[in-house]
Structures are given as structure tokens and as C-alpha cells.
């Protein structure tokens, strides 16, 4: 629920500043959180460019934020140790954007029961509610799935829950820290009057007959058709897996008829990019011939080519199999365009064709690698506790190889959990020159929520970053992220491949089995992990400060500023900021609604109370002065008349005068 008052809103683009003390992994995860805001809402984040108010993200001793824009200039938001999870960061930013916790809304007692006798002594005030003149639930129903809801164990004094949901099915839903719920997004969009999101372009599950405005392309010989089943497979769509009678559509290009090299083009509606890079994601089922092919193209429009020009992006490698395969294609389009799915009939015999479902297009980067664990429910149930399974080794853009280790039944002592670790790997015989210990690469392990709509997905992800200075242990001279040839163990796979697996970093508590079985984490029996390794070494340097301003002296040293900056010699106290005005350094002091700092260095605190006192003193002084002047005047006049003895009417006879 949101704090009422327009003064608490930020502009739709929020300025932020990464303080130097932030962990590198935290910085990387914060940037990922910003990407989720950009994808799912109209909120954007920009590095601070001297705006009067901005969010200063620092490594405090915990995870906390203020609620709403407090107009204090530099507003603190702490991402401390263990706070570097995407959902925790999104949670704190929802506070900063103006939201309280969900269970503090005025109607919460209709939906949950607070067990007051199970709350730690003195912590009861954490279960206060705000009435509807202070906070607004923005016309959205109570949301057990909100990432702003306490978990059932919050502030408990024992082992029993402090919050009991009136609908028991939600007992373990409250407290999810995975991603924005649908209602979190609805409220945020309402609060900030969002009409569109920054980086979302299109989603289509083909459930509606208008097929999301897609068109059959010109110049082809065959067509894509909207079906609920196709000869040669698949028997169901991917969105619903055939669960709902009368729905469950997908697009199919039959290669059972026609001639080799016949094409069928399915073109998206017109799209208008802003960023210049996009990720296209879709599920493809190849039930056709061995040589049938899908090629991704874009049709780009400009003034010289009003009918568009086709550009091939890439052919998709998808051998025929009884499986909806997940594919990602990176695009780099900067002008008005359509995405084109071109099916090409091969020369091998076919009794089926190509099928497409659950297409999503966004202006984001694609994940690097897909690890599909088939029959995952069974794997979770049958794998012994403390036994890991490993993804294949994947190569990153920078040439490092890595893999994910997963304990489907948790590590020892953690039954009912998924535990996950990221490892560096060196393949036997690999002679590529790389820098060791591996410097500042962030590995992200994401369990993919296979909801058809990218905006509604609540993926579960954790990231770890290779710190080249980290030792293997306290007494070791070896580095944790050194070449696995040196610090790892040799592994032989069943297919004969050999490699060295380095130490892993991750968490025993990646996700509970209960949550893994929820939503669409497992679909058609399978779980999909999206794995990425990104270079984050650029985050080791200080964020540049705006050219005309200096950040608070407590966090940034003056050494990084140009020597000619007049602000280098000025220290603004009480979180004031220095600006250059007509080549002179002046302090802009922090202000609140009824208080402010002032003085050359913001050293004095003023408030409306002080002003009222001053005004009252001034008024009484003036009144007193006037009384003295009046009294003196009266006395003087009296004396004057007393001395003259009534000579005022001398020589005038007062007779027959009417007044």
C-alpha cells in the first residue's frame, strides 16, 4: 500500500548514485533489478546527474530504505551484506518509490490474523496498520503474493507463525522474495500513472484470434495457421499444455505438403525500438523433416524503404524432437521494424511441420545459456539429499567456462530445498589464455518461470561474482577463483569429456521445493535454468559525480574531482551538496517540509517553529515600541497644555456659535 501525497512521488526516471562501499555483486544485482523495473513498469533509473533529489545506494549494516521521496537531497537506501538478492533490492526500491508493507494496509485484518502472543516482546509495533487517510491500496485487492508482504515467521518469538492467512493455501505464499507479483506491478503502475513500460515490446501466446496483430508475410508460398494440435506433433500448445479445453493455440507451418524451399513468413506487428538492442524469446517445436528450418529476420522501415527491407538475423538450429524448445535470439534494431519468423520447407520427407508459441520481445539482453532439467519433479523426489547434479560446462563471452551445480534435494541438513552453486571450469586441453584469478565476472543462475507473458514471470535468481582477491580459505595462499586446473578437481563425464571443476559459490537455500512446485517453474515436467556470466569489472570504479556538483564528503573523496573544481575547497555539512554558481562554490542545503539547513556550509538548522517564534518576538517588539511612543506623546501633550493655562481661546468670544 502506498503513502498518500503527491510530494512523496519521484519523477518517473529516478536518479541514483552507487556509493563506493557497495559490494560489486550487489551493484550488478541492483542493475538487474533496475532492468526488471524498466521491463515491467514505466519507472526508469539513471545515474545521478545533479538532480536536487537522488537515491544514494550504500552498504549499510542491513537492507533498508525510507518510504517515498523525502526531498532531502541525498536519500539513503542500504544494500548491506546478504541483501544482494534481486527481490530484496526490488523490495527496498518499492519502499523508496512510496510503498509500505502489504500487511500494514488498513483492511489487513480481513485477510490475515496476527498472532500477537507469538511476536517477540517489544516488536508488536511492527504490526501496526495505516488507516486509509495515510495509505492507499490503490483499488487493488489484498495481495498474499506481494513481495512487500511479511513472511509468516516475521518477528516471531518461537517457532509458530506470527501471521496466519485466513485462506490456508496462502500460508506459505506470503513473504515471497522472488519477483514482483501482478498486483505489485498494478499498484506501481497506478501510483505512477504508467501508460507503457520502458523496454517491453511484445508478447504473444496466440490465445486470441487476432494473433497479437501478426501478419502473414508477403512473397511467401505457404502460411502459418493457428491451431490447437498439429499432425506430427505437438499435441498441445506450450502456454497451457492443453490443460484448458477450447484454448491452447499456437502457430503451425506444415511442411507435410508443398515443395522444398517453400517459405512461410509470420511477421509481428510494427515495433518501435528505443534502445537499439532486443532479445527475442520463443518456444519452437520441430515435428517436421530433418531439413526444415526456421530463420529469424527483421523487416526494417525508413524513409528510403517505406515497404521495409529484410535482414537475416540468424537461422535456428532445432533438430526434430518431441519437445517445445526454448530459443533466444539477440537483435540489434534501431528503427521501426517487424520480427519475421520464416519457415522453410527442407527436402527431407515430413509428416508434420514447425510450430511456434509464447513469443516475447523486449529491449533487454538475452541470457547466455539454457539448461533444461527434464522430468524435474521426479528428479527432486528421487535424488538423495546432498547429491548434486551439474549443468554442462558453458563458455562465456570473455572465454571463461562455468557450470551450475544443483542439489535437487538440498545439501546435507537442508531437505526440501534446492541448493545451487556456480563453478568455474577449465576443459582438458583448453589452452586459451585467460587472466587468473578470474576477475569480476558475475554468474547468474535463474530458475525460469515459464509463464507465457514475460511481464508476469517471477523467475528465481541468485548471482555470485568472482572476486580475484578472495582466498580459498583463511589460511590458504591459493585463490578461490584461480584456474580450476590449480584449485579444482578433475571430472570425467559419461560421454568421455574431461574437465577441471573449480570451487563453487552459491547458496543452500536457493528455493524451497514448495515454491519450486508453484507457478510455472516446472512445465511439462521440466525445469529450465537460464545461466549467464557477465563482466562486471566496470562496477569496480567510482560512479562519476555530476560535473557541477560534489557528492557528500562522507562518501566521495575530493581526489577524484578535477583540481580546478571550486567545490574541492568547500565542505557542505548536514548532507548539503556543493554546486558551482557563477564560478563560485556554494552549498545547497538539505531541506524538509518544515525544516531546513542554512548558512555558508549548511551548519545551521532552521524550522517553521523557529520562524514563528521570530515573527512573534518581532510583533511584540513593534507593539511594545508603539506603546512607548504613544505614552511619551500623551505625556508631552498633557505637559504642554498644562503650562499654557488655557490660552488657546484668547481673543475669541465664544457666543452664538453652533457646532
Amino acid at each position, binding site marked *: 500500500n502506498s503513502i498518500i501525497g503527491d510530494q512523496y512521488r519521484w519523477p518517473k526516471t529516478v536518479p541514483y548514485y552507487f556509493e563506493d562501499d557497495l559490494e560489486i555483486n550487489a551493484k550488478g544485482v541492483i542493475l538487474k533489478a533496475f532492468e526488471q523495473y524498466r521491463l515491467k513498469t514505466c519507472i526508469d533509473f539513471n545515474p545521478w546527474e545533479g538532480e536536487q533529489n537522488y537515491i544514494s545506494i550504500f552498504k549499510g549494516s542491513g537492507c533498508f530504505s525510507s518510504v517515498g521521496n523525502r526531498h532531502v537531497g541525498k536519500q539513503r537506501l542500504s544494500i548491506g551484506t546478504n541483501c544482494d538478492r534481486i527481490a530484496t533490492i526490488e523490495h527496498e526500491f518499492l*519502499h523508496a518509490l512510496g510503498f509500505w*508493507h502489504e500487511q500494514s494496509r488498513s483492511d489487513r485484518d480481513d485477510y490475515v490474523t496476527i498472532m500477537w502472543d507469538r511476536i517477540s516482546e517489544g516488536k508488536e509495533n511492527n504490526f501496526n496498520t495505516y488507516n486509509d487517510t495515510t495509505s492507499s491500496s490503490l483499488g487493488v485487492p489484498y495481495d498474499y503474493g506481494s513481495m512487500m508482504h511479511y513472511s509468516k515467521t516475521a518477528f516471531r518469538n518461537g517457532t509458530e507463525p506470527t501471521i496466519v492467512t485466513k485462506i490456508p493455501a496462502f500460508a506459505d505464499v506470503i513473504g515471497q522474495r522472488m519477483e514482483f507479483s501482478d498486483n505489485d506491478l498494478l499498484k506501481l503502475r497506478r501510483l505512477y500513472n504508467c501508460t507503457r513500460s520502458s523496454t517491453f515490446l511484445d508478447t504473444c501466446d496466440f490465445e486470441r484470434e487476432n494473433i497479437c496483430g501478426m501478419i502473414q508475410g508477403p512473397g511467401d508460398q505457404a502460411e502459418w495457421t493457428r491451431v490447437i494440435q498439429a499432425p506430427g506433433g505437438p499435441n498441445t500448445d506450450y502456454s497451457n499444455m492443453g490443460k484448458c479445453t477450447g484454448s491452447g493455440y499456437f502457430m503451425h507451418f506444415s511442411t507435410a505438403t508443398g515443395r522444398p524451399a517453400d517459405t512461410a513468413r509470420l511477421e509481428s506487428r510494427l515495433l518501435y525500438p528505443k534502445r537499439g538492442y532486443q532479445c527475442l524469446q520463443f518456444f519452437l517445436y520441430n515435428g517436421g523433416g530433418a531439413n526444415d528450418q526456421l530463420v529469424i529476420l527483421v523487416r526494417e522501415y525508413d524513409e528510403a524503404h517505406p515497404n521495409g527491407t529484410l535482414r537475416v538475423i540468424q537461422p535456428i538450429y532445432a533438430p526434430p524432437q518431441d519437445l517445445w524448445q526454448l530459443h533466444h535470439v539477440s537483435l540489434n534494431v534501431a528503427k521501426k521494424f517487424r520480427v519475421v519468423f520464416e519457415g522453410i520447407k527442407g527436402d527431407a520427407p515430413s509428416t508434420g511441420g514447425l510450430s511456434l508459441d509464447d513469443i516475447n520481445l523486449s529491449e533487454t539482453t538475452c541470457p547466455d545459456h539454457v539448461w533444461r532439467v527434464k522430468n524435474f519433479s521426479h528428479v527432486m523426489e528421487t535424488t538423495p539429499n546432498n547429491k548434486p547434479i551439474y549443468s554442462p560446462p558453458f563458455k562465456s563471452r570473455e572465454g571463461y567456462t562455468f557450470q551450475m551445480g544443483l542439489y535437487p534435494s538440498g*545439501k546435507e541438513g537442508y531437505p526440501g530445498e534446492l541448493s545451487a552453486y556456480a563453478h568455474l571450469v577449465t576443459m582438458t586441453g583448453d589452452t586459451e589464455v585467460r587472466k587468473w584469478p578470474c576477475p569480476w565476472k558475475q554468474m547468474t543462475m535463474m530458475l525460469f518461470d515459464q509463464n507465457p507473458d514475460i511481464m508476469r514471470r517471477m523467475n528465481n535468481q541468485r548471482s555470485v561474482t568472482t572476486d580475484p582477491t578472495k582466498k580459498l580459505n583463511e589460511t590458504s595462499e591459493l585463490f578461490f577463483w584461480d584456474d580450476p586446473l590449480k584449485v579444482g578437481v578433475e571430472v*570425467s563425464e559419461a560421454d568421455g569429456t574431461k574437465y577441471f571443476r573449480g570451487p563453487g559459490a552459491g547458496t*543452500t537455500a536457493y528455493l524451497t521445493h514448495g515454491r519450486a512446485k508453484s507457478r510455472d517453474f516446472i512445465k511439462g515436467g521440466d525445469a529450465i535454468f537460464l545461466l549467464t556470466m557477465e563482466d562486471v569489472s566496470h562496477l569496480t570504479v567510482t560512479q562519476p559525480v555530476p560535473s557541477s556538483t560534489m557528492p557528500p564528503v562522507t562518501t566521495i573523496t575530493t581526489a577524484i574531482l578535477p583540481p580546478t573544481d571550486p567545490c574541492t575547497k568547500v565542505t557542505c555539512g548536514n548532507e548539503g551538496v556543493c554546486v558551482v554558481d557563477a564560478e563560485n562554490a556554494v552549498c545547497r542545503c538539505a531541506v524538509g517540509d518544515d525544516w531546513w539547513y542554512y548558512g555558508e556550509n549548511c551548519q545551521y538548522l532552521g524550522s517553521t517553529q523557529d520562524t514563528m517564534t521570530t515573527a512573534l518576538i518581532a510583533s511584540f517588539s513593534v507593539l511594545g515600541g508603539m506603546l512607548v511612543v504613544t505614552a511619551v506623546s500623551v505625556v508631552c501633550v498633557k505637559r504642554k497644555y498644562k503650562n499654557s493655562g488655557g490660552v488657546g481661546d484668547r481673543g475669541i468670544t465664544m457666543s452664538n456659535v453652533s457646532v
Partner: protein
Amino acid sequence: TPRVLEYDVDGGRDLDIFDINEEAGLNLVEGDIELDEKQAR
């Protein structure tokens, strides 16, 4: 295959925001909300 060392980034504990702040000795409103002067008054 012999096991490699595995490092738990969160010490093997699934800590919620409020647990982290409590361990840090923070006494914030509702566990993770910081008040400004005006609100505190």
C-alpha cells in the same frame, strides 16, 4: 568425483530482510523502514 569446496554466500541460512536487520542490531520501523526527522516526531 571428489567434491570441490562450496562457499555459501549467505552462510547457509535463508535470511529474510528482517532477520538480516535484526542480526545487525537495527531497530527500524517494520524491520526495514527508515524514518526522517519529521516522521520520527
